[in-house]
């Protein structure tokens, strides 16, 4: 699917930033290869190159983070600072996981609409939480909070994803669209099961549960953060190592195979990494269906290149900026800190629908 959602070209040079050296017959007096074609409708200013754009967003993130950490502190500085630092850490993990997972997922599946949550991830999380409350009662949620539960949830969700991929890729129909379809159907199945179980819950249990079913940044405890950072670092390193291979995956399966990429292997490895990231972020901060979609879509628009070495950092920084600035505004301007994720989901959902309706296809 050819996607042309990026802004019109504004920088005159190729995104590699270099002009090829004069070729053999360059002495025939031809104009230099770039610069010779400026379309008249373009504005006269030159948009900053991708690297500079990433840096600008990086600066914005730092400003937002400093504001968030240091401004409007009432009472004990130490207490407030520590709490905010923990929240900031959570936001870093969530932004990283959702942004990287979504961009990678969209690249390997050659689409810019679907996101990992369509694979049934969010629904699986909801079902696990619901089943837990159903079996052990609402108080079990709080009693079992902690590192072991986090790890178990993550492992379960990755296992689910890997089994799904294995099963589908081993079968006769090794076909991505089928994989996605199965993801949707399974997601629906998990959802129906969850809502069935939820009907059977007592009102108090249901109340305790529903708090868990929306993304939350602020009321998470900090003990898991070192592990979360470690996971992000490792996954990030593996993805970064593959950034050029990811670029070739944008050309589709056949062209990337032609260029020597072991497509099947890349697909499996990258999908497992996506599963790890999303599972971890969901278990940490609750499901966020459209957040990844929102930041990935913005990143494609704002980076000005297809190259993952720019798009990936851009998506992460945009996600972090959205969370930090959003949290700051919600907390101190609108006094509704808990609503940040609701609003992000709302906006993301609307953007998703608009894009989907405009394109009409995957």
């Amino acid at each position, binding site marked *: *699917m*050819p*996607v*042309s*959602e*990026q802004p019109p*070209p504004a920088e*005159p*040079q*190729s*995104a*590699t930033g*270099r002009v*090829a*050296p*004069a*070729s*053999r*017959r360059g002495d025939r007096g*031809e104009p230099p*290869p*770039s610069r*010779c*074609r400026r379309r008249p409708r373009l504005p006269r200013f030159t948009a900053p190159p991708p690297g500079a754009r990433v840096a600008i967003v990086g600066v914005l993130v730092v400003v937002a983070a400093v504001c968030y950490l240091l401004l409007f502190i009432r009472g004990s500085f130490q207490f407030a600072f520590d709490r905010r630092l923990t929240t900031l850490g959570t936001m870093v993990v969530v932004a990283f996981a959702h942004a990287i997972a979504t961009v990678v997922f*969209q*690249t390997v599946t*050659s*689409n*810019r609409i679907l996101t990992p949550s369509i694979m049934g991830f969010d629904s699986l999380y909801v079902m696990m939480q619901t089943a837990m409350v159903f079996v052990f009662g609402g108080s079990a949620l709080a009693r079992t909070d902690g590192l072991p539960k986090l790890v178990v949830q993550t492992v379960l969700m990755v296992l689910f994803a890997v089994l799904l991929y294995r099963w589908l890729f081993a079968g006769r129909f090794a076909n991505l669209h089928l994989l996605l379809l199965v993801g949707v159907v399974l997601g629906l199945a998990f959802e129906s099961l969850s809502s069935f179980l939820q009907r059977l819950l007592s009102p108090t249990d249901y109340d305790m549960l529903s708090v868990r079913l929306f993304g939350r940044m602020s009321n998470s405890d900090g003990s898991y953060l070192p592990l979360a950072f470690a996971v992000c670092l490792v996954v990030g390193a593996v993805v970064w190592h593959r*950034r*050029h*291979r990811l*670029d*070739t995956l*944008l*050309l*589709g399966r*056949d*062209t990337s*195979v*032609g*260029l*020597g*990429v*072991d*497509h099947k292997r890349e697909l499996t490895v990258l999908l497992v990494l996506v599963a790890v990231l999303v599972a971890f972020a969901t278990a940490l901060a609750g499901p966020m269906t459209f957040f990844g979609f929102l930041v990935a879509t913005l990143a494609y628009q704002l980076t000005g290149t*297809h190259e993952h070495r720019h798009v990936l950092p851009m998506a992460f920084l945009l996600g972090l900026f959205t969370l930090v600035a959003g949290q700051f505004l919600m907390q101190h301007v609108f006094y509704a800190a808990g609503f940040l994720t609701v609003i992000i989901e709302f906006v993301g959902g609307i953007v998703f629908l608009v894009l989907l309706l405009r394109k009409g296809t995957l």
Partner: protein
Amino acid sequence: MIQFSDLHKAYQGDTVLGPVTGAIEKGGITSIVGPNGAGKSTLLTMMGRLLDPTGGRVTIEGRDVFTTKSREMAQQLSILRQENQFTARLRVRELVAFGRFPHSQGRLTEDDHRHVGEALEFLSLTQLADRYLDQLSGGQRQRAYVAMVLAQDTDYVLLDEPLNNLDMKHSVLMMRQLRRAADELGRTIVLIIHDINFAAAHSDRIMALRDGEIVTTGTIPEIMRDEVLTDVFDTPVSVLEVDGRPVAVYYS
């Protein structure tokens, strides 16, 4: 040499190709011709390891294309498919630079940039190098795809309908350039082509397919004969001699 034996492709039990056995000699240009749906693209994409066969095997200079490491294969064999769609919006130069991936793994060296520049020039794309692909005409885009494959700088080049969308001038230019690549650089070029006269004028050998079978393979004089062409295309064809070249006429 590309060799394939008992190569066979079926979709849900319906055989669309083969089993076919044959070879494409090293050096020169081999054209694959045949009616729509004959299995030309199927054969070419299996030779280029993009499509898994239902049965049989393909080797290039003795190495199995499906089991050799993909990266090594990509330094020996490049392939252009009939249809190309990309997820991202790319400029011509960026696309052509992708052709260097098997050699540089994405970190372009001076040498890579030189190859990219040459490939762009080879297909008269230098002026268009910084345009986005969706800002090109169909023929210009087709040339950009071919430039990418040529930038890959492989001994074997497989092209599925490279003349698609090209006007007369650029078709001739493209064939001349492929000819040069074959003669001067020793490339082995296999292409699918619909105009039998073009195939006859510019290639060394022709392989004719019909209904999933290889009807015949041979040199130009062997193929450019009334009964052979009439049989392959299932249309009355007569071959005339114009300026010392065989020309097939089939408008009657």
